[in-house]
């Protein structure tokens, strides 16, 4: 208890429903988070700057400015995890939300425990500190320094995208199914929406691939999932290369 009080993660709740916002504050408070509420979309970015949250909970329908636009603004300047609160499960709504930069989404009505689990998953430092430096494609991934470079040039990734890349780079020969990636990167314990994976792989490719239409670094294995592309010139990697377990 004392350790949690030492570090109480800050959650910015952007929701226009006062009852839900209050309820979220209560629940998050009992779970060991600090929460601050913004009720309008156009005030969200200012609150983000003031509050410096560790996680943003973002409703999609907001007065002032809609959640998608808020999400883009925050993502434009920060990799802070964003979890969307959505009442809509239609593909177009979910995918639009994810493409605007959200890391995860949770569908209303949700159970408090589920929400807390998602927030914790986004907060956990997914990569255990090690001496690791990984190679994937022509990229160098510094796990400790949380940075990705190509020819010494830094590529900015959100923490989630970084985790996704590291997960693939650790086991270059393994084909990861979408379900396994959901488990390892997002921390889902049971089957969830694989659209999350598709959208984030696309976002990741847009940042790291030379030609996102024709990906070489994060390769699709039809009908199975994704795997890391080959390292050009067999640049010796310090990564633990395990025998491929793909089909």
């Amino acid at each position, binding site marked *: 208890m004392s350790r949690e009080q030492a570090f109480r993660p800050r959650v910015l709740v952007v929701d226009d*429903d006062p*009852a*839900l916002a209050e*309820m*979220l504050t*209560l*629940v998050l408070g*009992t779970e060991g988070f600090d929460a601050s509420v913004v009720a309008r979309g156009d005030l969200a970015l200012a609150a983000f700057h003031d509050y410096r949250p560790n996680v943003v909970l973002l409703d999609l*329908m907001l007065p002032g400015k809609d959640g998608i636009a808020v999400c883009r603004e925050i993502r434009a300047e920060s990799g802070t995890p964003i979890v969307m609160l959505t*009442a*809509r499960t*239609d*593909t177009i*709504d979910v995918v639009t939300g994810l493409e605007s930069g959200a890391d995860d989404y949770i569908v*209303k*009505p*949700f*159970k*408090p*425990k589920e929400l807390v689990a998602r927030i914790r998953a986004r907060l956990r430092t997914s990569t255990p500190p090690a001496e690791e430096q990984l190679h994937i494609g022509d990229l160098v991934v510094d796990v400790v320094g949380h940075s990705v470079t190509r020819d010494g040039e830094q590529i900015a990734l959100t923490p989630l995208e970084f985790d996704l890349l590291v997960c693939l780079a650790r086991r270059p020969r393994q084909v990861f199914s979408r379900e396994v990636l959901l488990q390892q990167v997002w921390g889902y314990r049971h*089957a969830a929406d694989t*659209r999350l994976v598709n959208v984030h792989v696309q976002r990741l490719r847009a940042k790291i691939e030379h030609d996102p239409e024709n990906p070489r670094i994060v390769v699709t294995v039809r*009908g199975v999932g994704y795997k890391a592309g080959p390292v050009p010139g067999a640049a010796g990697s310090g990564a633990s290369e395990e025998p491929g377990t793909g089909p």
Partner: protein
Amino acid sequence: MNHRLRRVLRAVSPGQLVRTWRASLRTRVVVSIVVLSTIVIGGVGLLVIRQISDGLVHARVNSAVAEASGETLSAQKSLGSSGGYAVDPETQLSQLAANLVSRGQNRGYEVLVGPADPGTDSDSQVSLTTSGLDPTTVPARLRKAVSATTPGIAITPRWTYTNVRYLSHRFGTEVSGVVVATTVVLPTDGGTYAVYYVFPMRDELRTLQLLRRVLLTSGLILVAMLAGVTLLVIRQVITPVRLARRVAERIAAGRLEERMHVDGEDDIARLAVSFNQMADALQQRIRQLIELSRVQRRFVSDVSHELRTPLTTVRMASDVLHDARKDFDPVTARAAELLQNELDRFEELLGDLLEISRFDAGAAALEIRDTDLVELCGHVVDSAGPLAAQRGVHVGVIADVPVVAAVDPRRVSRIVRNLVTNAIDHAGAPGSVVTVTLGADDEGVAVAVRDHGIGLEPGQQSMVFNRFWRADPARARTSGGTGLGLAIALEDARLHGGWLEAWGAPAQGACFRLTLPRRAGDPITHSPLPLGPEGSPLEGAS
């Protein structure tokens, strides 16, 4: 060469002809016009030819008879006037004949003179003819008729048609003609001699031939012109019809803004106007429906959002209360528990309702992936494990073949989950068996879920898919299903272009069979699995 021949043969094969006949209005009309006008023109032509030839022949016969009578009369007179000369009959006869022949050559007839009664030695006597004429030109009938008349009296001329024959080929061997018979009495011996005038109808035949040629030629030209005119007229009618067809096809293909070009005020133009009005009405109606569907979808989405936000708050509040229920007095604690349970049901019902209204609005879309249905069914059965254990029902999966199909795994999973939960619910006494059987063939895949519980009454097979339908309204609700599960499952199956069917018999249990095409949307004609009591190899294990 061979190819071309075969193509031509194929083009004129009966099947192809029938197809052209049926497909082309133009061909049909033109061919009909040509055939009918040929018949009519041919008939009229024949009638005209017949009448003209009759008239010609008739006139010829009249003139021939008149001419023959006149000649004979004058010949008789000249014989009578020269009666004083003592000339022997043969000379007199040959003189007479020569006289007649020379006149005939000028006037265009042949002459044949002989005894009226040829008797037995006819050959020797009938020799006085126009040179080259075959004596058989005069039919035996006519000779007989002449010989039968009273000798010595000049008879009224008799005539008949004949074929004029020549001994030489100078004029052709045969030509139709008229032969007129008269008699003269030689004063020298008082014998009666027959004089036959043969009138070949060469001119008339020539006229007729010319006429026939003219009629045939003009008939052909007329038919060809009729065909041409018909073609032109038909073109005028057909072209707008074909244009209308093309526009209709484009509209059917979704280009609702396509319209026909209106030109003039004739029937075709009115057709175009009506057609365009119809297209306008259709377009407007479709726009209305699209708008309605959009509004409906929007409404569903909004309702979803509006209902879900307060429900989330209630849900969280209930969770807080539920977690703290051990601190409450028993009544409040139980109330918190009830609140929690009913909220689960409420949420489920809301979810199902929104799903159904999404189907109704046509907003449901498939997300297709190659899916291993054996694995999928395994997951569903695993997740239904707790419920099955609670009921004491054993659930088994039977799959002898790999079952892979391009389907929406979320929806198929929901269908199978619904069927399995439903089967466990209705499996009856503990210890009962529920079997999930998978099958596949070239066309489709199937999942059959068989239970051995109370089964279905006759007529209930189709009702089970009705919304909020319950087998027995008086029966206590057991698993707390929403009553929409099978209705949603049916919609999900239909969305794939598949089937969901039920079989059941009282006390024998029920079987629900899901059949899906290998690729969602492809047609299916049969299911790889049977539907019915034999649908489960574990029959009797219950």
